[in-house]
């Protein structure tokens, strides 16, 4: 069957020419693309079959995804967002649908200090103040910050609430509070060097401008190492939910420390026990040490909890791996519950404190199996199973326990013989 496929560019040009004043009567016959079977393919929203609608945001100004793609964020951790007070608290990213290492900005997980209204900040009015134990207190406009030398880096941000647990059925419930974006901004060290940190300055307090003015204490060593005062993510201005117009990115550390809507950095001499510090206080030293950074971690995103394999045969098992102390150096996958491990393929060059996508070619023979992945990071730390953590701390078998600090334990997914996928811890 002959298929008539007119050149779209020619059509658009003609359309533009027509819109420019030629007689509309000269429009060519309606353009239709046809598949080999002869099925007509309708035009997308915002497009006209005659003259393209240039007033459509969809076509020209700001593109939307296909209406058939329905993947969305969901409130997680048992509290609705917005809650009864209208506050947004924990909203997970649909990692089960994510392809590659970068989370789309519109799907980046949201976490706020205690629940927050997303502030509506005019960047022309926004300021960043650096003060405290510095030689020169400074206040910057957004325009000035954007004139400073910048960096662009991939970093994940992850909330402390993410943990593999028997209660969590789906990936978004167990791991949805981690996301990875390409962040652009000024290194905090650049700004602190301009201000001149005094000898006594050992900590910083970073504070946002939202109604609660969420604040955290952070060590000056980390501030000088790699913190970014970021104004852009994934090629555009940071989204309001992510801290527009300015946020701190603290690579590898617990997500609450990456203060959003950043307006103030105070250099101080001690841990300040400020708002977020109090909220995340730990009783035991081991727990505190392990809660600071995210350990080596990975999770299989496909197939994952509550998904259904359509039948036996080939599947590309996909997942994400990351570490708060460096780059991913290796990811291993097991299909037999951890008895044997195979190297997964890593996508691209793993970046420090960034998600790395991995894949593993797998042919499912229809028998029940347990899929697991584990991350080995650039300082040689290995992602543990819950069992390994239990044994390390000498906890009796069968005793209920939580993984100390940030839970980086392995998430097993059980594939039943009918192809249904469920949480292997349940």
């Amino acid at each position, binding site marked *: 069957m002959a298929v008539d496929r007119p050149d779209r560019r020619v059509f658009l040009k003609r359309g533009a020419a027509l819109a420019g004043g030629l007689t509309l009567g000269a429009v060519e016959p309606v353009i239709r693309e046809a598949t080999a079977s002869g099925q007509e393919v309708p035009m997308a929203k915002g497009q006209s079959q005659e003259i393209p609608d240039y007033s459509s945001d969809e076509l020209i100004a700001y593109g939307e995804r296909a209406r058939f793609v329905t993947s969305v964020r969901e409130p997680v951790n048992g509290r609705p967002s917005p809650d009864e007070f209208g506050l947004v608290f924990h909203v997970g990213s649909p990692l089960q649908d994510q392809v590659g290492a970068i989370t789309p900005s519109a799907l980046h997980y949201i976490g706020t200090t205690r629940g927050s209204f997303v502030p509506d900040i005019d960047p022309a009015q926004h300021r960043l103040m650096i003060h405290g134990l510095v030689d020169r207190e400074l206040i910057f406009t957004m325009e000035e910050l954007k004139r400073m030398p910048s960096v662009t880096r991939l970093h994940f941000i992850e909330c402390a609430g993410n943990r593999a647990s028997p209660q969590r059925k789906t990936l978004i419930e167990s791991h949805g509070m981690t996301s990875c974006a390409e962040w652009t901004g000024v290194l905090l060290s650049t700004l602190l060097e301009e201000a001149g940190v005094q000898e006594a300055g050992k900590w910083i307090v970073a504070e946002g401008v939202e109604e609660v003015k969420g604040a955290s204490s952070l060590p000056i060593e980390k501030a000088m190492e790699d913190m970014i005062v970021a104004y852009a993510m994934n090629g555009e201005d940071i989204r309001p939910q992510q801290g527009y117009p300015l946020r701190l990115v603290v690579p590898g550390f617990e997500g609450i420390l990456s203060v959003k809507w950043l307006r103030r950095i105070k250099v101080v001499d001690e841990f300040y026990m400020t708002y977020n510090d109090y*909220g995340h206080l730990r009783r035991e030293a081991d727990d505190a040490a392990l809660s600071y950074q995210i350990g080596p971690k990975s999770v299989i995103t496909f197939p994952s909890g509550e998904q259904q394999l359509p039948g036996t045969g080939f599947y590309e098992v996909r997942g994400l791996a990351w570490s708060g102390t460096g780059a991913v150096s290796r990811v291993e996958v097991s299909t037999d519950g951890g008895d044997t491990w195979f190297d997964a393929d890593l996508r691209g060059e793993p970046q420090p404190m960034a998600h790395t996508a991995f894949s593993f070619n797998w042919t499912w023979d229809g028998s029940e199996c347990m899929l697991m992945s584990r991350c080995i990071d650039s300082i040689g730390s290995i992602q543990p199973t819950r069992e390994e953590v239990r044994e390390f701390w000498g906890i009796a078998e069968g005793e209920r326990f939580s993984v100390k600090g940030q839970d980086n334990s392995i998430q097993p997914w059980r594939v039943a013989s009918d192809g249904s996928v469920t949480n292997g811890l349940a």
Partner: protein
Amino acid sequence: MGSLKTLLVLMLLGASSVLAQSPTFGLGRTPTAEEVRVWDISISPTGAELPEGQGTAEEGALVYRRQCARCHGRDGTEGRAPRLVKYDRDGDVHPWNLGRILGIRSPYATAVWDYINRGMPLNREGTLEPDEVYQLTALMLYWNDIIEEDEVMDAQSLPMVEMPNEHAWAPLPDYAPGQPRLPGYPY
């Protein structure tokens, strides 16, 4: 001549404001003392930044009824917002095991002040006067059997209050780039 002097003064002022900018990139400016004072709401454990003002729990009870009771309940235990009190606390129970009650969990009384000052009341954050924050802080401490009802809390007395959790929290470890999270922990 006078206008030349004025011009010289202006030039000098101009030069000093250039110096006040960041030295390498010449961007930003020096905030005024008033700008720093208004924005700096961080209260350290020493209480160095506490403003003038004072209050007792007795006074705090009146402010509480007006500003807090709607969400936290009449006595701090029965609202839909977080619980604020453990009445008749058993001295044998470790304060850590009483949950996240601000007036008990907080290792410093200054942190209670900071928390109320920056975070309360919901939707009207930042509207409490320093006296009211001292009064409410005193109420939280009195309700949880830490101070007396008529004890005056101010910039001098508040940092001196000994909290039940003062020595029961784990400081964060010294951070160094590229090091394991916990020495000896392989994971």
